[in-house]
């Protein structure tokens, strides 16, 4: 199998694997990026959300061959404790989470939204997160956190 090139979190990588392998498995098992989670493997829960060329997509349903050459951003590429993305900081500020398993996927969906729509209404945020399941019921805090991050990003851009 010829290696397949990808750009993951800004870094060029090339992966030797069956081209049918789900991107999720490539990230978790081949590249060691465990931040993206397995939830259902059926594109129904959003736990495995990543940005593919800027668009939030469920990585469990994307074969490696389909994403060849594309730019992938995972939760690890969003920020770090030292340099958190405003969304990550806002989730901490709002204590937006319980078990936290769904959060990487939700943060990616939210980033996808704010990257193209910096001033979303609460209804627009909710609609953008409808692909993500949170079973613990942290929804209200998550919506508040995305609103807060949007505000922080806008204020940063105004400065």
């Amino acid at each position, binding site marked *: 199998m010829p290696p397949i090139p990808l750009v993951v979190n800004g870094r060029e990588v090339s992966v030797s694997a069956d081209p049918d392998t789900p991107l999720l498995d490539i990230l978790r098992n081949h590249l060691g990026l465990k931040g993206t989670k397995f939830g259902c493997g059926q594109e129904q829960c959003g736990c495995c959300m990543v940005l593919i060329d800027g668009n939030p997509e469920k990585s469990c349903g994307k074969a490696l061959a389909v994403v060849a050459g594309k730019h992938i951003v995972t939760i690890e590429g969003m920020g770090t404790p030292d340099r958190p993305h405003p969304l990550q900081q806002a989730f901490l500020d709002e204590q937006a989470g319980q078990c936290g398993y769904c959060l990487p996927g939700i943060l990616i969906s939210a980033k996808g939204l704010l990257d193209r729509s910096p001033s979303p209404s609460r209804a627009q945020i909710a609609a953008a997160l409808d692909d993500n399941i949170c079973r613990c*019921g942290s929804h209200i805090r998550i919506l508040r956190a995305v609103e807060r991050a949007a505000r922080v990003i806008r204020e940063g851009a105004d400065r």
Partner: protein
Amino acid sequence: MSASPGLPPLLTANPRLGRWVQFPAPGRVTVSTGRVEIGQGVLTAMLQIAAEELDVAPERILLQTGDTDLTPNEGYTAGSQSIQFGGVALRLACAEVRGLFLDHAAAAFGYSRGDLSVRDGAIIRRGAPTGHDYWSLAATVDLRRNATGGSRTKSISDYHVVGQNAPRIDLSAKVFGEPAFIHDMVLDGIVHARVVRQPRRDATIARIDEAALRRAAKGPIEFVRDANFLAILGEDETVVEAVAAIAPNHVVWDGVDAINPLQEEARWLLQRPSIDRAIGPPEPSETMPGLRRHEATYTRMHIAHASVAPSCGLALYRNGHLQVWTHSQGVYPLRDALARTLDLDPAAISVRHVQGPGCYGHNSADDAAADAAVIAFRNPDRPVKVRWRREEEFGFEPVSPAMVVTVRAALDGAGRPADWTTEIWSGRHTSRPGSGGNLLAAEALPDPPPAAPAVESGYPPGAGTRNGEPLYDFAAKRIVHHLIAGTPVRTSSLRGLGATLNVYAIESFMDELAEQAGMDSVAYRLSKLSDARARAVVQHAARLSEWKAGTPSGTGRGRGLGFARYKNMAAYAAVVAEVEVDEAVHLLRVWCAADAGLVINPDGAINQLEGGIIQAASWALKEGVRLDSNGISSRDWESYPVLRFSEVPDITVEFVDATADRPCLGLGEAAGGPTVAAIGNAVAHALGARVRDLPLTRERLMAALLRA
């Protein structure tokens, strides 16, 4: 040396102080709790309790949790009991440790004991440092001694950590995508495994087309087979997962009886044989003369835990010792069940908790750990990781049983109950792994343990009977309970157990009675509610929501209230819901007032109540396990829908007296029943017709309107 009889039970069971607190290095404290983080934030609260009582900065404390090698045996992290019982034990242990150090400092250095205190681990005398601290004295204060309960805990007026909002200690790792979950664990030489599930207990494998499975596999796989336990192993998880997905088509089973799909609705329970019990005064044999009667029946389908990810377990058998990693709620009970399953000495097994996706009761976590243990035991020196498939989790987790509740009351001249009966039909709500049974892997192995008999917990708190007795002041109240042993699918505990439908039934019935009496439903409740704390939360919720009496019903918009004290012995919660109903129910707003006694971490507690409200709203509006002749047929998020972001209401939660010096009351499950009831009452108000069968789907609303 034995522990004092006055100690709380968990300290009596784990009396050795060094099991709870250690000072391993200068400036460092290790605190152990048998409680585990299952998404509820309990570790943060435990850390606050320990920091407060030891008088050390929380940052100094490393928490050890849920490890049979290291931590106290606290049974299960379940039933909203972690703070109410585990927290109390930890608090006393920490207070005694602090007291021992102060006693020692006083004796060793000739200080007056009354002059001494602790500030961030340093021993202080009349406000000035003594130069001594926990760490300098650790070598001379022997914690290999049993708790006596003899030390005074701090006065609540001295608290500066407990009662303050504390950020979750586990949240940061999760927000930054660090490998925080058991699913993220990697061990050298790991092999991935999937189990081909036995469709029913007692089903036997007739034939396996191994060749077909090997042909379909895109890489090397192995089989582990013992009697009716069949697993597929391989180093490439993608390969193993793909084979597991098609494996059920290549395995033929004998002894698979068809299930009657009609059993997905609860009323079939009424025809089943049952184990019957009555709690309370005998029911009057005849209608009480002159008293009007009212009776109504409420039902609920089976409910899935539906954790956001399927269960996972890891195990490694090496040099005669089995190490297991699990997100089970009880590492010690799981260890004992594994010991019986594998015929091993419990001392040869270590079970360690690692966080998993949110846990709301007995799901498949124990089963996944048992799968990994059984496979690892047969494959020494190979670390085995079993991650269930989504459809496996939905299809084989123990679900919360379907229930029927009939409430009947004899009413006095003012239309208030003089005699009240809650009659409950339910499958078992508890089947945690105990005697080696109730682990799916054990049932598939040779000589499976006999099916554990269906049992109902003692009342209170009860299981199916939980909250079956209303808190209201009725002259005679009783529960009649029918435990149905034979259910079509495996059932066990889910957040709230029987309380969810029991509170739904009681609080719906109260609204029906209020309406018949021509009274406002809040005023009607308060007229029969003398418990001051109960009254306070009902009145607080009414105030929060700006409750108005006498608003017309049947307008398409409605409000309802639900109230309960969880288990009749834990936290009080009153919930008001506002809905709009057209073809479906739109939940707009929820207000909740709760009294949980002293609250350790107010923001964490509110988070728990908010989560409970949203989960209960999902149960009320959407959830019911579907069956077909093969068993559970709702095996994905399409056929088992839950509330999504666009559907969640605005929520306001407030505590009543959260800083009062009163015992902590478990609150993690307190909002569920009241929320389901509030939504039901709001829908009845909006429609002008009552829907007594959950979930409140479009089909059921239509049927209720046609009947009305």
